[in-house]
């Protein structure tokens, strides 16, 4: 019988530690598939963040480095500048990237570092037990916003794609989601575009992925997918925020 679907070479046989209905496993598989399709697996260094994906290196057949909370884009910068042949996948959650690591992500983007950032946004801190994140929606109940996020005290959600798209250097920024087959396909396409741009030396790219966290949202996996479609993606509109080459001419006359 013809084999029409198989486990990607980039993943090993370990059982993933993620909760039922979590988005990390889906995105891990897409990353591994894409690296294989583009023949980049052997050149890849995967950077694990602090958060639920801290043990991502348990699953990938690539070299790995684990970074401190929020610092992955700085570590990525060091790796890439030391060896531009490497393909750097900086994998971060929303607590990691949009809170502890805002300086790192903004400046890696502003420098146009030739790296790929996969940004998993599930609007909560997952590993520590569902606390309020900078991405938590107004009114969303979490373990540290038990009455719902109050904008009078805790402000409004941080929109990373929109913010980074105000800088000139990034080559490609897109927000996708995992809530439907169509959006899964778009996510896979976005990851592929990001890795391909990096391999061609075109510069910084970031794919933000709206991803379910049924455990900390207190929902079933299908309910979580519905919540992404009906609520989360209203606050975080899907789409391409930047897709153009930056002006790289150096002008010394100023």
């Amino acid at each position, binding site marked *: 019988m013809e084999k029409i679907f198989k486990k990607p070479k980039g993943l090993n046989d370990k059982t993933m530690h993620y909760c039922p209905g979590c988005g990390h496993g889906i995105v891990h598989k897409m990353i591994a598939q894409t690296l294989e399709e583009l023949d980049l697996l052997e050149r890849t260094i995967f950077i694990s963040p602090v958060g639920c994906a801290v043990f991502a290196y348990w699953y990938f057949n*690539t*070299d790995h480095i684990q970074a401190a909370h929020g610092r992955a884009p700085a570590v990525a910068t060091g790796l890439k500048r030391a060896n531009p042949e*490497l393909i750097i996948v900086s994998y971060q959650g929303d607590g990691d990237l949009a809170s502890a690591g805002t300086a790192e992500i903004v400046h890696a983007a502003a420098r146009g570092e030739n790296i790929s950032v996969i940004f998993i946004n599930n609007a909560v801190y997952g590993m520590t037990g569902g606390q309020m994140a900078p991405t938590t929606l107004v009114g969303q109940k979490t373990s540290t916003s038990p009455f719902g996020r109050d904008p009078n005290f805790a402000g409004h959600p941080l929109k990373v794609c929109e913010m980074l798209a105000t800088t000139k250097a990034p080559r490609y920024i897109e927000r996708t989601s995992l809530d439907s087959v169509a959006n899964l396909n778009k996510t896979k396409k976005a990851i592929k575009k990001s890795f391909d741009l990096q391999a061609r030396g075109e510069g910084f790219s970031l794919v933000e992925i709206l991803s379910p966290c049924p455990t900390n949202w207190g929902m079933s996996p299908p309910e979580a997918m519905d919540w992404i479609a009906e609520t989360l993606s209203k606050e975080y509109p899907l789409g391409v925020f930047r897709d153009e080459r930056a002006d790289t001419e150096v002008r010394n006359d100023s």
Partner: protein
Amino acid sequence: MSEKVLMKGNEAVAESAIRAGCKLYFGYPITPQSEIPEYMSRKLPQIPGGAYIQAETEVSAINMVYGATSAGARAMTTSSSPGISLMMEGISYIACAEVPCVIVNVMRGGPGLGNISPEQADYFQVVKGGGHGNYRLVVLAPSSVQEMADLTYDAFDIADKYRMPVMLVAEGNLGQMMEPVKFKELKTEFTDKSEWALTGTRNHEPKIITSILLDPETMEKHIHKLYEKYALIEENEVRFEEYLTDDAEIIIIAYGLISRVARSVVDKLRDEGIRAGILRPISLWPFPNEAIKSKIEQAEFFFVCEMSMGQMVEDVRLAVNGAKPVHFFGRCGGVVPTPVEMFDNVKKYL
């Protein structure tokens, strides 16, 4: 060795690092060390594979170093006291992950924003920890521009040999002063890093550089492994210098630039027939415990001088262990002790 040139201590650090094969520099401007990033930004872009990256913060700078050295490159960062405080998180991670790197701290007055005058009050932070957890740094303390150059060069070799961060600490005025200096030749042969450096999986199984060891037994085993390495360093990497200690009854202990003030005090004491000498720790960790212990019998007392409220003096007291008096004299806040006041303070105990 190169021809003798006149250079600032900070510039000597930068030039020597380049000669040691450091191609990547990540840093953030802070007084009194900004000549180092400035020098690097001029020179490194001219070297094949070289890059100067101005980081957004010292936090990022040390993490960029972590990434670059994990890829097998020689890389460094430099800062001054408040910036070094910001790097402590990264240093702890790097120490645990067993990745080599070189950090230079051109120390200024603290605590807080303090001032830009020289101090030695970062001793506790860099020698005893600073970052969280069980780890050590090799800490080297030069006392001249020549030593700024030499120890920077050696720091890269020590870091590679033991796969750990090595820190050079110099007082702000040592970074700023100009002295003649000769440089070693450009290094072309390096330690083989293929066992652990991240180069992709073309010829090997996946490699992991990490500092998370969730199982307590595994973490304990890893810490024990680190401390076996540290025991080896205590055996092999202790550095100190003695001046007129053979017959000395007064053993002055001072490191860095202030040891040169102590030297003129010893000469003056000798002029008066007082047998004094200096034991100058060059490696603050590993600390020259045995050298100090070897002076206990001949010493009437030990006299420690620091530009702090007394930090290294605690290590001297541990080495002497109550066998002889250990007196302390220090100035802090960026005030440099004069030879006259140091001389007067020694004489108080005669």
